[in-house]
């Protein structure tokens, strides 16, 4: 009963709950993968610039979970944890700057709708 992935691959509910109760590396990677995809989706499809920024945050946090999971389950050291703290700090700085950019964009274009900011062409 050593399945790595849940239901869609032929598991019963009981097997599923059993899989859920013993968290391993795969679980965390799965979650970070899902988060990453959602984040990318948000970046590519949201109209509002702030929503794009949120997508960026999601991507960053997905990366963080990845770091932590590998740190916990592969090496026993705290390398990944420390790196995750770096990422959080950088994400905070980057969010501040990104918001500053959005503010400037609003002042120039009078809107935060990314579809309207289409001047990057000839």
């Amino acid at each position, binding site marked *: 009963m050593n399945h790595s992935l849940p239901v869609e691959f032929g598991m019963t509910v009981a097997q599923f709950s059993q899989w859920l109760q013993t968290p391993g590396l795969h679980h965390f990677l799965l979650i970070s993968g899902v988060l990453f995809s959602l984040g*990318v989706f948000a*970046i*590519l*499809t949201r109209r509002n610039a702030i929503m*794009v920024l949120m997508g960026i945050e999601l991507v960053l946090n997905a990366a963080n979970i990845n770091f932590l999971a590998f740190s916990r389950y592969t090496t026993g050291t705290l390398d990944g944890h420390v790196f995750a703290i770096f990422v959080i700090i950088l994400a905070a700085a980057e969010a501040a700057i990104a918001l500053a950019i959005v503010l400037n964009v609003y002042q120039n274009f009078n809107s935060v709708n*990314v*579809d309207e*900011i*289409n*001047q*990057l*062409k*000839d």
Partner: protein
Amino acid sequence: MSHETILQLTVISYLLPLLGFTILIFLNKRLPRQGDLIETGLVFLGLALSVVILAVKMGSYHDETIQGSFTWVSFGNVPGFGPMAMTLGLMVDNLSAIMLVVVYVVSAFVHLYSIGYMHGDVRYGRYFAYLGIFTFSMLGIVLTNNFFMMYVSWELVGLSSYLLIGHWFEKKSASDAAMKAFIVNRIGDVGMFIGILILFGTFHTFTFDTIFEAMKAGTIPFGSEAWLTAAGILVFCGAVGKSAQFPLHVWLPDAMEGPTPVSALIHAATMVAAGVYLIARTFPMMTADALMYIAAIGAITAFIAATIAITQNDVKKVLAYSTISQLGYMVMGLGVGAYTAGFLHLTTHAMFKAGLFLGSGSVIHAMHHALHHAGDHHTDAQDIRNMGGLRTKMPITFWTFLIYTLAISGVPLTSGFLSKDEILAGTLAYANLTGRWYVPIIAFLVAALTAFYMFRLVILTFLGEHKDHHRVEAIHESPRTMTIPLIVFAVLCLFAFFSLNPIGAASGWVYKALPRPESVVPAAVAAAGAEQFEEAVHHSHSLAMVLSLLVAGLGILVAFATYYWKKIDAESVAVKSGPLYRFLLNKWKFDELYDATAVAGTIGVSKVSRWFDNNIIDGVVNGSASWVKGLTLGTKKNWDEGSVSAIFYMVVTGALSLYIGWLVGVGMMPMDASIGAIIGYVILGFAVAGLSFFLFYVGVGGFDNHIVDGLVNATAYLAGFLGLLARRIQTGRVQTYLVFVILGVLVLFLWFR
């Protein structure tokens, strides 16, 4: 002293003047006294060496020839010729050893004399450098054992002569004379060159001894005796040019434009003697016909020059014609077979003729000084009619000059008497053997004339009264640097240096050292052998001596009677023989004759060549240039703009197209083609012709404009079109761009892992 040592000394003595030349020509302005003492010192050192070499040669190796050769360049196996190499070298035999001393004695004392004579000259240092290169070249002629080095040195002495005659080149007559000397020499050299080529072609070597040995073994040029005679006469042509024989004697009187020491060195004692030396060197290969030709030329030259000399009034011109005449004597002597006599006369003549020129230089120097003192710039310092009575003011010059004159006139107890006597005996022997009596008749006549004009010169210059009393007061003897050489040469005019017997040279050391070389030509064409000749000379010797004393005495007597005792009036003789006198005074009009024929002919040829070059050759060049210019425009543009003749262009291109078509068609047609194939190739040819005509029509310009530019424009249009297509990707929205980025990353990860 071994052979090697002698050869080494010879090489050193050969190269010393070259060293002097090299030092002086580059550094003369920076050296003290412009380097004259360095040059003179080197030459005197060479003189000492040459005397040592002669002494050793005469003492230890009297009958040997010491040679040293080396292969300068080897061409390996030349197709159609065989192995070809150029071997050069030096030889020391009695002939070259004696000539070496002669050249050095004259050169050294002329150097010394020049220190006095050329004092203050505008190109003093360069003059000495040129004397050095001349001495070096002359020694090259003397010491070499092969025709090649002799020819090279031959040309070099010609060059040195040119440089020295034209020393005062600002004067047009001097530079003209230099060119005349060089060109006339060159004419003779052409003959010599052809002769050398005939010999090289036959014997594949330049070395004298090798050639003579091969001839002795039976090889002769082209297997024909006529060619052998021709080769001998052609080589003699070089001597005709260099030794101022008829008909190439015209350069020597003009060469008197050079400084007098130059005249003494080159045009009296050494360079002009080189021709005689050449005949002496190549004597074994001369056939009887060649020798007859040589003797005839010599006699004619001696006669013509002597008749001119009796009328000349410029002291140097008298001496110049005297030189030509005496050279004729030497050549004649060699031609009749009196080999040793001819060469002996060369050596004695070198001494007294050099002395005569130096003496005349002394007189001219003094006259210049006196005229300058009197502020007279018009009177000719060299005209003997302006001289007279210089005997008391210039005693050394006078007495030495007198000794030289006695020598040249053939008065007993002088060296000149010995050599002249032997030549005269030789001519009588020759006439006895061959019946050609004109040779001795001319020889004795010339002897009389020689005595006459030389004493005329002495009397008019030194004896009698000088016209201008003030002028004669300012005349004084020349400095010691000039009188010492005069004395040295006068001493060398005594008989004792050449033979201890005052009336016969045959027992002297010169005769013993230079026996007549054996002829190597086939017996059928050889001249009378040495023994036969000696016999005949022996018979004629006493008669020759009596006759020579007679004619010399006669000449001297007439000279004194006319100019000293004034019993015969020279003026009236000149007037009465009017046309004859003028003919002789004008040098037999040789220069005018040559001007009208050779010079005018050459100028005519050059005019024709110029017409050909300007019109025909330039026409072709310009025509092809304009056709190419038309090519850039193309026929159509040519027709429109007409800057180049369109019809000319079309005609040429039409012809060219047809030719190209013909080349292609005929070139590609195989030999055994059927009628159908032939027609096919013909059509192909016409097609190509048409195509090439079209291309010519369009012209290079058209080709460039339409085709090349067309390609470029098409490429640009294509790029633009593709660019417009790709433009639509640009939406301007960042998110669109991000999609492409992420797609790209995915592709990278999944495809290229």
